[in-house]
């Protein structure tokens, strides 16, 4: 948008070539996504100078070229106001083009040999799924930066989509509590919301990076690890650091915080500590973490402090869908693997940067089940669904039910495709859930990490739709898909086209 307005300012004679609203949304998305990827490439080129500087020229040239061309293309796109479907189309197109352009960067720099590898790596980064096919030890500082900031951008985009268009927060679920009126400031205007979220991202990143850099980590590595934690991406530059107990405690706290709703963080930052503990979603989130940590501790325990620390680490890493590559500990059993997979599927609080089903939706579904139990006994009863003291609007409940349906359908279809490509049932199921919840790494039943580079190209590509739709909280992708389907159907109907042309000519 900033890019768009800056270029528009210099255009005096507006001669729009793209005026159809569908095309405007598509082109706007592509131009924005590609330009952002170009800017990211330029920034990474500059960061690469702090290291060997081998990739600097390639990153700068490619980034500048791409940014210039696509920013310039804004002048040929109409600035007509887009409706909700078209905006979602623009967001989805932008997200996908950002992924595609960044995958070109990986390919041009030469860190990967095939497009499928670069596309998978780029998708994993933008969707904050902790799956990688790269050997990070061979990457320069620029590419490490690009990879980490991709996660931040992806997470930020998903968050904005959630705030602007999707009913996933307590606020947007139509709750009417006076407690939440305080947060109206947070959502007052889109601009304010974007600024507030960006501010929270920035402060969290800097804070965690500063704390991490007190240990053995360099400032650069701490910054990248911090970005991974805040964006719930889970990429690491050096896994050896993750075995340090102080780093583990710090990351646990960081992941616990990033799995918390931005509203909660906002309340804390603005000094409304008392209201924080009234959030029933937060209660559930903390209760889940506490219970899962205890279960993990007892199931795997060697009755030591390290085992408790690692239990907490695995729990927070899974529920926040961050997915740092920690090695299994203690006596690992099937139940442990299932518990972690369940936590990944549940995900963190709504309006956090994590993926998955998210706790508020889960609570609403519990409400749906209670309503059905009551209605079985009293068929004519009018039962409102409540989360804590908040009453939830029926339309929002329906959307949550649809989200559940889509979540399970995508997981099932992805699993079927993966098994067709040769995966075992468990691996396919675990991979699909991880991709859809944008978590990772994929763990075998014994807890060992299944490396993504052992997957075939087909298997990796099969995970991409799940990762993208999961990162954008499913509904925008499906609404976009439906919109495109409907538009193309209309486009292919000659009679309707003729009538439209006739009426417009009149």
């Amino acid at each position, binding site marked *: 948008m900033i890019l768009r307005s800056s270029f528009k300012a210099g255009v005096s004679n507006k001669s729009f070539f793209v005026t159809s609203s569908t095309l405007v949304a598509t082109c706007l998305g592509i131009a924005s996504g590609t330009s952002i990827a170009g800017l990211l490439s330029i920034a990474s080129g500059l960061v690469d100078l702090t290291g060997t500087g081998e990739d600097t020229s390639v990153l700068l040239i490619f980034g500048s070229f791409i940014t210039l061309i696509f920013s310039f293309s804004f002048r040929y796109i109409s600035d007509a106001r887009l409706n*909700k*479907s078209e905006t979602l189309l623009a967001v989805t197109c932008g997200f996908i083009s950002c992924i595609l352009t960044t995958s070109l960067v990986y390919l041009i720099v030469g860190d990967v040999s095939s497009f499928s590898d670069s596309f998978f790596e780029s998708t994993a980064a933008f969707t904050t799924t902790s799956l990688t096919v790269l050997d990070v030890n061979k990457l320069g500082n620029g590419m490490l930066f690009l990879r980490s900031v991709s996660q931040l951008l992806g997470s930020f985009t998903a968050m904005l989509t959630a705030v602007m268009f999707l009913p996933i927060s307590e606020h947007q679920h139509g709750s009417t509590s006076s407690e939440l009126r305080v947060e109206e400031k947070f959502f007052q205007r889109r601009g304010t919301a974007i600024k507030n979220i960006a501010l929270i991202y920035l402060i969290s990143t800097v804070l965690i990076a500063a704390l991490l850099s007190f240990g053995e980590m360099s400032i650069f590595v701490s910054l990248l690890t911090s970005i991974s934690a805040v964006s719930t991406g889970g990429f690491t530059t050096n896994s050896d650091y993750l075995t340090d107990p102080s780093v583990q405690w710090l990351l646990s706290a960081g992941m616990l915080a990033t799995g918390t709703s931005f509203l909660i963080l906002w309340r804390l930052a603005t000094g409304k500590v008392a209201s924080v503990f009234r959030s029933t979603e937060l209660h559930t989130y903390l209760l889940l973490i506490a219970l899962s940590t205890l279960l993990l501790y007892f*199931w795997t325990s060697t009755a030591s402090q390290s085992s408790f620390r690692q239990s907490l680490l695995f729990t927070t890493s899974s529920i926040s869908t961050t997915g740092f590559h920690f090695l299994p500990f203690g006596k690992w*059993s*099937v*139940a442990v*693997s*299932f*518990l972690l997979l*369940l936590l990944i599927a549940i995900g963190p609080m709504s309006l956090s940067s994590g993926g998955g089903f998210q706790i508020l939706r889960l609570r609403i*579904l*519990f409400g*749906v*089940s209670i*309503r*059905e*139990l009551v*209605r*079985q*006994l*009293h*068929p004519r009863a009018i039962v409102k669904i409540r989360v804590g003291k908040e009453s939830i609007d029926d*339309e929002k409940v*329906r*959307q949550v*039910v*649809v989200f*559940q*349906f*889509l979540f*399970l359908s995508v997981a*099932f279809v992805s*699993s*079927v495709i993966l*098994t*067709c490509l*040769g*995966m*075992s*049932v*468990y691996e*396919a*199921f675990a991979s699909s859930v991880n991709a859809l919840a944008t978590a990772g790494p994929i763990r075998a*039943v014994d807890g060992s990490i299944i490396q993504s580079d052992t997957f075939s190209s087909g298997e990796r590509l099969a995970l991409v739709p799940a990762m993208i739709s999961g990162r954008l909280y499913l*509904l925008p992708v*499906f*609404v976009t898909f*439906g*919109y495109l389907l409907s538009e193309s159907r209309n486009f292919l109907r000659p009679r309707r086209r003729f009538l439209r042309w006739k009426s417009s000519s009149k």
Partner: protein
Amino acid sequence: MKLETQHIRSTSMHVCGIALLFLSLGIAVSAIVSLFDSRVDLTPLFLSSLIVAVVGLILFTSTTVGETDQASIFSAVGGTWLVVSLLGALPYLFAGTFSRNGIGAPEIFIDSLFESVSGFSCTGSTVFGAHNLIELQGTGMLFYRQLTQWLGGMGIVVLVVSVLPSLRASGLGLIDAEAPGAGVERIAPRVVDTAKKFWVIYASLTILVSISLFFAGMGAFDSIAHAMTTASTGGFSTRDLSIGHWNSISIEIVIMVGLILGATNFTLHARSIEKRRIDYGNDSEFKSFIALVSIGIILVTLILTADGASFSTALRSASFNVVTLGSSGGFGNTLGAGTPGDFVSWSSSAQLILLFFLIFGGCTGSTSGGVKIMRLRIGLAHTYRTLRSIRRPRALLQARMGSRTIPDTLVERVAGFVVVYGILVVVGTFILTALGSDLITSLSGVFSALGNMGPGLGEIGPSASFVDGFSAPGRLVLLIFMMIGRLEIFPMLLMFVLPYRNSMKVIKTKK
């Protein structure tokens, strides 16, 4: 002098009493069947029949029909199923069917109860296996085992309603609580007649399948025994290799047709009989069911062919297993572990397609289990409507199924059911994995138990025993899920509401 006997007003106990009398009759028939064999099971069967009859008579004669509100109905249906399943385990316990070296009385009790619940709920999961062969059992006990599924298929409570006119309109509530699906349609003006018609159609289907199986090459006893578990889509067999024992295409075809008819809404059968023409084509659920089964057969056949099987073998294995799981039958046509019909040895993709059928099962108002095709269709229609309404927030859109509009209340009921179902699946899998079973076995075991399917994936394939896949506590968990699944969750979960209310009343009165 006129003696006045004071009856207890309790619908639950009254219904339960009659159900036990029917059960006692069933066990007595099995005892008579054992007379034609070596008479090994005569005493345990006769003794069980006597005990069940006495308990049933006491309950029936000392009670009358009481309140018939929703809580009472759930209490009656849930309680009846619980008591019938418990007392239904007596023949196995008295005959020592599941006693073997190295296991104690609690495990023998769990195994007997598991087989009894699996029978009445038409699940078809078994604790017989290589350690305890089915074919070593006496004819009487085998007949009783098959009979449990036949009684459970149409529903014991439906049977009770058909002979209990005093229930009047509340009988429909009882049938509704027991029958699978989202509501039962009256096919006769009176509820008693509706129940009777259902049973007549069910019995006719059993006879038809039995005759067909006999002509297809089965012996007389086996054809009757298998007809009972085909019409009820139960899946118990009198042979260790199930239908694979005969290795006959014609028998498999009869079983498949029987299972599809069993998994079809019985109201459709009634309408077709009434109109004297086949009236299935107008039902959208039936069409979807047939379409899904056909697609499943094609996909699995292609996968098996790609894996190296010949087309005819692939088609035969795919057809039988897709139909048997799609209808929640659970028969097997395997000739042993690793042979073409053993679907746990198939590639993962074929197994996942079977898992889909394991989850969804057949049509509403049929004898099959699972989530049901109708709910899948309503879910799809609701999703389509909601996605459109996000695009057009001001439009008044309705979920539709064909030309019919789906009311929001039905959508909400389906959503509620699916959510509770999902919660149960997660909880069940969680408990079973914690008890030491592997994840896929646990997950498919829970789906199989809740959907009353029979076999599952992993260690509980068509030729495996549930003893191999689950520990005794695990089997106990599964048998609870079978009962919950048979009554489509709510009656079993809400059956304790009435006793709770009554006990609270008593406490308040005392205070």
